[in-house]
């Protein structure tokens, strides 16, 4: 290879590596698995990519051969041998694909599927209910009174059985780094296994078109060490702590008196709305509106005053609150540890 050729080749390899690296990073990538299920799928993908590469470049080679030999008829060595050409078509068009496809069928639909299909409930340590709404995730922990939204906490290195249901249209629960997606279909209780190799934050998103705000229906799975998870769960199960200062009490009264209470629930108060997410421990969440905005005072205020600006089409109406009341409610919401 000439100098220029070699430099050219290095550039190409670098670009390819860069592209693959890019594919690896990003915190919702199917190529950075953190569980046996996702790892099996990723391995299956790399093997399939390799086989596909062989087929593609083989065909490309033949097309180039056809171009270079465009003046000459018949095969390079064997000339115009009709029987051999048909034989090649039968071999590479039927025989070789049949063998490869049988292998793919057995590997993918028997060994890998055993890791990705719904787990036997007995083989799982705990169960979580994730309920799809138009455009956020309600999360419940059966056996406790804990209810949260959009941020699922699970103990690391534990087989968690997730029951996925929906209250309105079809959604799809999908955390690429932990497992394949499972559709949430009215009237069906589909189950999927969530298992995280090690503690960490794994992002997921709704993967079945469910209306205008389908794009802003994301979630996070926090895999925590078991003891930290149990502490979190205990806190989640508890109702809200009584407001410690007069401002917070006033904030709670404004909240309960306003339209907010008709949609949201804060356990321990008279707010029992079922439409919106449970806000009992809102301040423990890192994000708001299904990961659309971070959970900071400025964003929280902007979201309350004009949700349609942030999530056009969202079902939450704009709340008209005066200056002082507004600040009191903000303080109160930020106190809901």
């Amino acid at each position, binding site marked *: 290879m000439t100098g220029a050729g070699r430099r050219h080749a290095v550039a190409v390899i670098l670009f390819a590596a860069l592209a693959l690296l890019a594919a690896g990073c990003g915190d919702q990538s199917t190529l950075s698995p953190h569980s046996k299920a996702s790892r099996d799928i990723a391995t299956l993908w790399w093997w399939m990519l390799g086989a596909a590469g062989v087929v593609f470049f083989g065909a490309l080679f033949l097309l180039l051969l056809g171009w270079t030999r465009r003046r000459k008829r018949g095969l390079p060595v064997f000339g115009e041998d009709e029987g051999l050409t048909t034989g090649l078509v039968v071999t590479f068009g*039927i025989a070789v694909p*049949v063998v490869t496809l*049988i292998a793919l*069928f057995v590997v993918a*639909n*028997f060994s890998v*599927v055993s890791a*990705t*299909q*719904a787990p036997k409930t007995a083989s799982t340590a705990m169960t979580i209910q994730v309920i799809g709404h138009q455009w956020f995730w309600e999360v419940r922990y059966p056996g406790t009174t804990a209810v949260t939204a959009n941020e699922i906490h699970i103990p690391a290195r534990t087989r968690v059985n997730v029951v996925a249901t929906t209250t309105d249209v079809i959604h799809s629960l999908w955390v690429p780094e932990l497992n394949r997606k499972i559709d949430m279909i009215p009237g069906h209780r*589909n*189950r999927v296994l969530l298992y995280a190799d090690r503690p960490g934050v794994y992002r997921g998103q709704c993967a079945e078109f469910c209306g205008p705000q389908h794009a802003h229906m994301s979630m996070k799975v926090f895999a925590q060490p078991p003891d930290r998870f149990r502490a979190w769960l205990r806190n989640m199960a508890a109702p809200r702590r009584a407001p410690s200062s007069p401002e917070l009490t006033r904030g709670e009264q404004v909240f309960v008196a306003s339209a907010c209470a008709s949609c949201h629930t804060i356990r321990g108060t008279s707010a029992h709305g079922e439409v919106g997410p449970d806000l009992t421990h809102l301040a423990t969440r890192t994000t708001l509106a299904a990961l659309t905005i971070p959970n900071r005072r400025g964003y929280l205020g902007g979201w309350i005053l004009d949700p349609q600006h942030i999530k056009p089409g969202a079902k939450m109406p704009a709340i008209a609150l005066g200056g002082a009341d507004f600040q009191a409610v903000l303080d109160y919401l930020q106190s809901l540890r």
Partner: protein
Amino acid sequence: MSATRRKLPLDALQWFGLLGAPLAWMTQFLIGLSFQFAQCNAAGTTWSLPVHGWAIAALAAAAVIGVLGLGAAAVLYRTISSADEGEIPHAARLRFMSILGLTISSLFIWLILMAGLGATFTDRCVQS
């Protein structure tokens, strides 16, 4: 040899070689799926159907018909190839259809076996 050749129903062989295996697969497919839908839905709680039993029966029957289809196409192909020029009317078309029959039947036998064995070695009503 030519005496027996005239006796063979060439058109019947042609159509059975072409359509036997595909229709056998279609039947196996419909039987297998019907039992899956009947057993693995809400109604399944009220009865327990022999899902695997029927899957195996359908697999066996379809495979036999597929092989017979392949045999029919092979007999037709050999008959046409061994006959001398012009002896059999529409020989070119019959030879063309026998080649089609050979390929179709072998592909469908493979599909019948793959689908049937796949369904047999999979647990019943495990939600995937």
